[in-house]
C-alpha cells in the first residue's frame, strides 16, 4: 500500500485512526500491530511470512543473547546470519549468480525470487535490535507482539526511516497523546504528501520525458540532472515526512531523516543530512566495530570503502549502486585527507556548488540503467555526444516545469522555514495553517485521482 494512494488516505488510515483512538490504551498496540501486518500483507500477501519469520528469529535470538551471556556473541552472529541471510537471498542471489556466471562456462540458473517490499529496512532494524541487546544498550523485548510492532509499524515499515529500537523502546510501553502532537503529525504528513505528489512525481514525469527523448542536448541533460536529484530528494524526504507525521498521529516520535542536504558545504556534511538513519546505522554497526578512524591509516581507508561499498549495495543489487557508494567513499576520503579543510576556507556558495554538482552526478549514476546510459548522461552535461546546446523540446520543458523547479529549489532549502518562523509571520501562518494545509491536501488528492504515475522510488529497497 502506498501512502499517496486513495486506498491508504481514504480507506485504510481513517479506519485505523478511528479504531485506534476508540479502543482503550491497553489495546492500542494490538490494533496498530494488526493494522501494520494488514498494511504489509496488502502489498505483499505471500512474503509477509518472510517478515514474520525474521521477527520470530530476532525475538528468539534476543532472548538467547540476554539469557546466555557466555554464548551471546555466538547467538548474535547466528541472528545476524539469519536476518542478513533472508536479505541476501531475496535481494542479491541473482546478482551473485550473474557475476559468478561471468567466470563459468556452465552457467548457474537464475532463481525465481521476488524482492519483498521493505526487506532492506526491516532487516536493518532487526539487526540493530539484536546488536543493541548484545551491547546492553537496549533491554531485551520479551513480548513478541511488541517487538513485532516495532518492526512492522506501518509508518516506517516499507521505506524508513530506519528506526532504532532504543528510540522506540519506551514509546512501545507508554506513549503520550495530545492534540498538539496530533496536529504536528497531520501537518508533517501533509507537507510530506505534497513533496511526494506535487514535486517528486511531477519531476519524475520530466525525467521520463528526457529518457524517452531521441534528441537530447546540453540543456536537456542539465534539466534531467537537476530534476533527477530533486525528484529523489523530494520523493524520499517526502516519504520520511509522512512516516514521521503518521508516527506522531499514533503517539510515536521518530528521529529526523533529512536535514536540508542540498545546502551542505561538503560531501561529509551532505551525508550528515541525507538519509541520516541509514548513514548512522552504518556508522554504529559497521564502521565503528571495524575500528572507525582509530586504526592505522590503511585500515581506516579500508573501513570507509567497506562502509560505502555496503551502502551502495544496500540501495540495489546492481553495479551502478556499488559504483555510487564507492564514488562517495572516495570523495569522503579525499575530503578527510585534504579537501575538507580547503572547503571550509572558501566561500560557502562555492562549496555548495561543489556539493550540488557532485551529488547531481552521483544520482545520475544511481538512476542509470546501464554504464553506457550513465556515461552518456554525465558526458552530455559538458556536451559530449551531443552537438546542440538547446532544442525546441528542451526549451519547452524548461519553460513548462520552471515554476516546479523554483518551488522545489526553494523547498530544498530552509529559506521558507526560516521565513515562516519569524515572529510576525509565524502568527499569520498559525491562522492560515488549516487553510493552506487543506489546500495542499485537496490538490494532492486531485493529482492522485488524475494520475497513475505514483511509484515510491525507495520501495525497491
Amino acid at each position, binding site marked *: *500500500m502506498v501512502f499517496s*494512494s*486513495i*486506498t491508504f*488516505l*481514504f*480507506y485504510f488510515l*481513517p479506519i485505523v485512526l478511528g479504531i485506534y483512538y476508540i479502543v482503550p490504551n491497553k489495546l492500542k498496540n494490538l490494533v496498530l500491530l494488526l493494522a501494520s501486518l494488514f498494511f504489509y500483507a*496488502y*502489498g*505483499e*500477501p*505471500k512474503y509477509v511470512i518472510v517478515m514474520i519469520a525474521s521477527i520470530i528469529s530476532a525475538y528468539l535470538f534476543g532472548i538467547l543473547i540476554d539469557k546466555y551471556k557466555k554464548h551471546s556473541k555466538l547467538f548474535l552472529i547466528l541472528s545476524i546470519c539469519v536476518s542478513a541471510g533472508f536479505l541476501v537471498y531475496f535481494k542479491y542471489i541473482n546478482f551473485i549468480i550473474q557475476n559468478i556466471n561471468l567466470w563459468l562456462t556452465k552457467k548457474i540458473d537464475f532463481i525465481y525470487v521476488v524482492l519483498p517490499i521493505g526487506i532492506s529496512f526491516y532487516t536493518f532494524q532487526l539487526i540493530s535490535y539484536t546488536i543493541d541487546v548484545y551491547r546492553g544498550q537496549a533491554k531485551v523485548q520479551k513480548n513478541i507482539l511488541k517487538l513485532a510492532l516495532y518492526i512492522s509499524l506501518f509508518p516506517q515499515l516499507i521505506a524508513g526511516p530506519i528506526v532504532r529500537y532504543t528510540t522506540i523502546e519506551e514509546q512501545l510501553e507508554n506513549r503520550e497523546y*495530545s*492534540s*498538539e502532537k*496530533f*496536529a*504536528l503529525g*497531520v*501537518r508533517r504528513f*501533509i507537507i510530506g504528501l505534497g513533496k511526494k505528489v*506535487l514535486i517528486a512525481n*511531477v519531476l519524475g514525469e520530466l525525467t521520463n520525458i528526457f529518457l524517452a*527523448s*531521441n*534528441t537530447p542536448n546540453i540543456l536537456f541533460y542539465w534539466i534531467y540532472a537537476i530534476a533527477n536529484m530533486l525528484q529523489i530528494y523530494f520523493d524520499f524526504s517526502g516519504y520520511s515526512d509522512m512516516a514521521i507525521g503518521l508516527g506522531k498521529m499514533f503517539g510515536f516520535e521518530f528521529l529526523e531523516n533529512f536535514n536540508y542536504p542540498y545546502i551542505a558545504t561538503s560531501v561529509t556534511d551532505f551525508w550528515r543530512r541525507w538519509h541520516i538513519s541509514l548513514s548512522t546505522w552504518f556508522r554504529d554497526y559497521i564502521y565503528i566495530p571495524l575500528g572507525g578512524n582509530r586504526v592505522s591509516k590503511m585500515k581506516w581507508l579500508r573501513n570507509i570503502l567497506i562502509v560505502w561499498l555496503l551502502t551502495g549495495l544496500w540501495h540495489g543489487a546492481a553495479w551502478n549502486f556499488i559504483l555510487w557508494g564507492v564514488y562517495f567513499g572516495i570523495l569522503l576520503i579525499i575530503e578527510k585527507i585534504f579537501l575538507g579543510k580547503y572547503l571550509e576556507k572558501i566561500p560557502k556558495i562555492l562549496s555548495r556548488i561543489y556539493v550540488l554538482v557532485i551529488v547531481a552526478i552521483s544520482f545520475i549514476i544511481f538512476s542509470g540503467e546501464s554504464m553506457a546510459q550513465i556515461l552518456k548522461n554525465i558526458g552530455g552535461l559538458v556536451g559530449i555526444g551531443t552537438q546542440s546546446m538547446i532544442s*525546441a*523540446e528542451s526549451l*519547452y520543458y524548461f*519553460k*513548462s*516545469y*520552471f*515554476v*516546479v523547479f523554483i*518551488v522545489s529549489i526553494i523547498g530544498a532549502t530552509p529559506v521558507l522555514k526560516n521565513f515562516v518562523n519569524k515572529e510576525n509571520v509565524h502568527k499569520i501562518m*498559525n491562522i492560515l*495553517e*488549516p*487553510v493552506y*494545509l*487543506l489546500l495542499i*491536501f*485537496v*490538490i494532492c*488528492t*486531485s*493529482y*492522485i*485521482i*488524475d*494520475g*497513475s504515475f505514483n511509484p515510491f522510488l525507495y520501495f525497491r529497497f
Partner: protein
Amino acid sequence: MRKKNHGLIICISVFFLGMSLWAILSKTPDYSDSERRVLAKLPKVSTETVLSGEFAEDFDTYAVERFPARDLWRSVKAYAQTKVFGQKDNNGIYTADKHISKMEYPMNEEMIKHAAQVLNAVQKNHLQENDVYLAVVPDKNRYLAEETGHLAMDYDAFTNTVKEQVDAEYIEIADLLNAEDYYYTDSHWRQEQIADVAERISDAMGVNLSEEYGVFRMEKPFEGVYAGQSALKWESDTISYLSNETIEQVIVTGADAVYDMKKATGRDPYEMFLSGNQPVITIENPLNDSGKRLVIFRDSFGSSLAPLLIEAYSEIVLVDLRYISSDKLGEYVGFEGADVLFLYSTTMLNNSLGMKQEKKG
C-alpha cells in the same frame, strides 16, 4: 514549540473523514462520459486474487477511478497544474484560444514504417491492378501548436517520410485546412469545412463532384474527446453535416446510416458519421450507374469525408484496418477496377500499432 492548533485538526479531520465516508459509501457511475471509458468495478475477493496481489492492485484502481466527483477532482488538478504551477500542458492536452488539443510529438518513424508496411502489403496482395492514392490528414496541432509555443512535429518531414514509404500517388490536402476547420474540443475536422478537400481528392482521382450541399446543424452542443480529457472549461461547439439529393438516397450496409442520428445524441456525437468505426462499410449510390467504385482504407476522418465523394461513384467501400486484418480483405471486399484511396491522419500513422498486419502463414 507551536501552540495547540485545534482549528487545524478540526478542519482537516472534517474534510478527511467526510471524503472517506463519501468514498466508501457513495455509488458512482460505471462509465465516464468525459473520459469515454468504463470505470473499474469493485474486484471480487478470492484466495487466489488476494495471494497473487491482483485484488490489491484492482482495488487500488477501483478506489481511484470510483472516487466521488471524479471529474471535479480532475478539473482541480488541471487548474492547479496549468494555472498555479504554470505547466504548458496537462497530460499532453493544452488550450489554444477556443481550441483544446493534444500534442502529437515526437514523430515516430517506427510507427510510420509499420503503417507503410501494412498498406504496402495490402497493395501487393490486392491492388496490383488498381490506381492507388494517398492523402494524409494533418492533426490540428499542425495549425495550433507552434503559435501557442507547444511542441509540434515537423509535418513536412512527416509527410515526406510517409510519401517515400507508401507506394501510392500522393494528394496534398494540408494547404486547404486551418485550425478553424477542426472542432474546438475534438480531434476531427468539421465536415462542413472539407468540401474543398473532397474536391481536391476527386480531381486527383479523375472524377467530378458538382452537386451543392445543404448545411444542417445539430442542436445538441458538441463536447468532443478533448473536452473530457482536458477537465477544464471548454468552448461550446456544434456538429453540422452536409447533405444533398445524392446523399439522401444512398444505401448503407455495415453502418446504420450515412448520418446516424442515434449516435449524434450519444456519448461520441462524431460517430454520427457512418455510425463510427466499423471494419467494412458499403455506401451504394443508386443515382450513379457508371459502375465506378472507390475503396477507402481509412481511420475515423474518412467517415465524414466519404459521403462527400459518393456522388462520383456507384459504390464506396470503407475499410478500417484496425478491425479487419488485410489477409481477410478478399473475403469481404472486391477490388477489381476500383479506385483506392489510403486516407489516414497523422495521429493514426504516428501511432499505427492498431493497424493489423497480415498474419504470416
